[in-house]
């Protein structure tokens, strides 16, 4: 392949400003709210936004600290209900990032049908649309969302031609926008040509680039899972990388690449690792090394079990992958996934289950060279103890046990029995494995005792505190407070 040729950006692929501006006029006239869009007004609105409401800021911070953020999907037709919903997900769902999911008519640019859906929803008191119709609501109404919430809000949709939607949402103050010319066509449309969607998304990216040039970074997220149904990683990775390059060509500099969980732990962790590596590599190769790349895992995107308890299991398994692969954010499903658009309570439950997994697994990773060495350690320790008991039993195991407890060779943490020495104190190491903080008298070899000591010292150093009983207490509470390792508060 013509490597040298392909590997540098072709500036002629960027839409020139003038035709862009001409096209813009047409785009904005597609629905009446287009008239509300003014670029300078948009820039000014973004400039006064608090840092805490900016998607790129929160993503970068999470990436820097290897933390995984959690984000729901959510959108209902009426503004007051929508704000109530997002507020609930923020406060009761412990979400880190918020969405505004757009309804299916808007996604197909059927604004008149969306309008009908809004009106029918008002009349019937039931939500008649499967999302929030942001184009119909217009700039002022949309800004109520940004102003009512404390967290950054992203537009999530599935729109082949999202030019007007992007125009309106950017001016409205949303700081992240999902989609791309491949990922929002092939899984979301039937008759729309790729030429058209790619071109329409180049428009969106060019618009994003204009904000970027004005000093306003808006995060773009190629839609990773595609059809959500048995998509092999290499397929969705290829799309993610290609859409990243397409976006970057138009001036986008903040991208989140995604992948939908396939379900096999090893494959999924491997896939996430490769995704960020290759995206960064290709971006650099094409001269976009300055772009900020983060990652997103989508919890299982295919068909869910009807039963809510079983749905929790699917949700938690996805969360485990997200945590172990250290992705920047995870998109969360709900226990009602198989049934329909979830209640806000169900949505918040999915978030909280995910939060627990993420925080509980925060300190772990799958680098399973470790499995063998962990086995060796446990085996050696257990032999030390059992052999000692057998030895001092002198042919009588029962007697050996009694003597071992007297001597503290056998010592069980937190036991109520007065026949237990209670000298051994356990604590977790920096990855959350249970280690021995004070060995009491258990007969481990010098090497093994040294191993435990090092593990605890490593953690104490990391936490910048002395190892003490407080550390043990913190570990006792940790899982019930969402963590595995009881870090200092």
């Amino acid at each position: 392949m013509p490597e040298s040729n392909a590997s540098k950006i072709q500036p002629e692929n960027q839409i020139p400003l003038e035709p862009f501006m001409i096209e813009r006029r047409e785009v904005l006239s597609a629905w009446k709210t287009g008239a509300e869009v003014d670029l300078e007004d948009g820039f000014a609105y973004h400039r006064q936004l608090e840092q805490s409401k900016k998607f790129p800021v929160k993503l970068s911070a999470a990436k820097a600290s290897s933390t995984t953020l959690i984000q729901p999907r959510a959108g209902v037709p009426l503004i007051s209900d929508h704000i109530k919903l997002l507020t609930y997900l923020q406060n009761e769902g412990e979400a880190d990032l918020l969405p505004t999911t757009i309804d299916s008519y808007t996604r197909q640019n059927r604004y008149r049908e969306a309008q009908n859906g809004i009106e029918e929803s008002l009349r019937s008191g039931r939500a008649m649309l499967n999302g929030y119709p942001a184009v119909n609501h217009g700039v002022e109404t949309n800004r109520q969302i940004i102003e009512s919430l404390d967290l950054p809000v992203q537009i999530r949709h599935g729109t082949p031609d999202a030019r007007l939607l992007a125009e309106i949402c950017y001016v409205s103050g949303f700081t992240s926008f999902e989609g791309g010319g491949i990922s929002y066509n092939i899984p979301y449309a039937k008759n729309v040509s790729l030429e058209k969607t790619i071109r329409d998304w180049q428009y969106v990216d060019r618009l994003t680039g204009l904000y970027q040039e004005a000093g306003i970074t808006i995060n773009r997220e190629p839609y990773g899972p595609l059809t959500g149904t048995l998509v092999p990683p290499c397929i969705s990775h290829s799309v993610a990388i290609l859409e990243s390059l397409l976006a970057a060509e138009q001036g986008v500099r903040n991208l989140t690449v995604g992948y939908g969980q396939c379900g096999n732990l090893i494959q999924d962790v491997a896939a996430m690792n490769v995704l960020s590596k290759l995206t960064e590599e290709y971006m650099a190769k094409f001269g976009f090394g300055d772009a900020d790349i983060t990652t997103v895992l989508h919890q299982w995107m295919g068909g869910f079990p009807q039963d809510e308890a079983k749905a929790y299991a699917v949700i938690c398994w996805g969360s485990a992958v997200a945590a172990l692969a250290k992705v920047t954010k995870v998109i969360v499903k709900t226990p009602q996934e198989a049934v329909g658009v979830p209640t806000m309570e169900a949505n918040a439950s999915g978030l909280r289950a995910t939060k627990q997994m993420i925080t509980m697994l925060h300190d772990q990773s799958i680098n399973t060279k470790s499995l063998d060495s962990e086995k060796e350690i446990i085996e050696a320790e257990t032999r030390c103890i059992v052999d000692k008991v057998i030895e001092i039993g002198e042919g009588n195991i029962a007697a050996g046990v009694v003597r071992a407890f007297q001597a503290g060779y056998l010592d069980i943490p937190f036991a109520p029995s007065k026949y237990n020495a209670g000298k051994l104190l356990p604590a977790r190491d920096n990855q959350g494995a249970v280690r021995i903080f004070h060995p009491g008298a258990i007969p481990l070899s010098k090497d093994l005792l040294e191993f435990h000591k090092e593990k605890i010292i490593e953690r104490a150093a990391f936490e910048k505190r002395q190892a003490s009983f407080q550390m043990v207490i913190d570990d006792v509470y940790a899982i019930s407070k969402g963590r595995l390792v009881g870090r200092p508060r």
Partner: protein
Amino acid sequence: MDRKKKLVLGVIGADVHAVGIRILDFAFTQAGFEVINLGVMVSQDEFINAAIETNADAIVVSSLYGHGELDCRGLRDKCVEAGIGDILLYIGGNIVVGKQHFEDVEKRFLEMGFDRVFPPGTDPEDGVRWLKEDLKVGDWEDISDA
């Protein structure tokens, strides 16, 4: 012996859920029906035209994305206008927005003129069973002989 019964199958409205319909097609075909699969994003007119053109015995509508209620209004009336007022009309999938009592949902869709309404996650075989009953076909072997 009967000719194979014909079904017009599709996902209505702006709905692009493409997985279920592929499996319904497979299941109905396996069960001996002749399936005219219109795929996703099918309008009311497309359903009706296909049914007239092929002289179909039933229109089987799938709707997953929640707008089923809006998309299906008036379908029966349009069938009547088009002169196929008696055609068997099925619908299934996640046909309304959110978790609602299925009895209420079923009632609404029956009133809209559907003959049978199926809840989320219905096994295709249930559809097959009812189709055979309503279209008065025997079991697999009979049809495949046809």
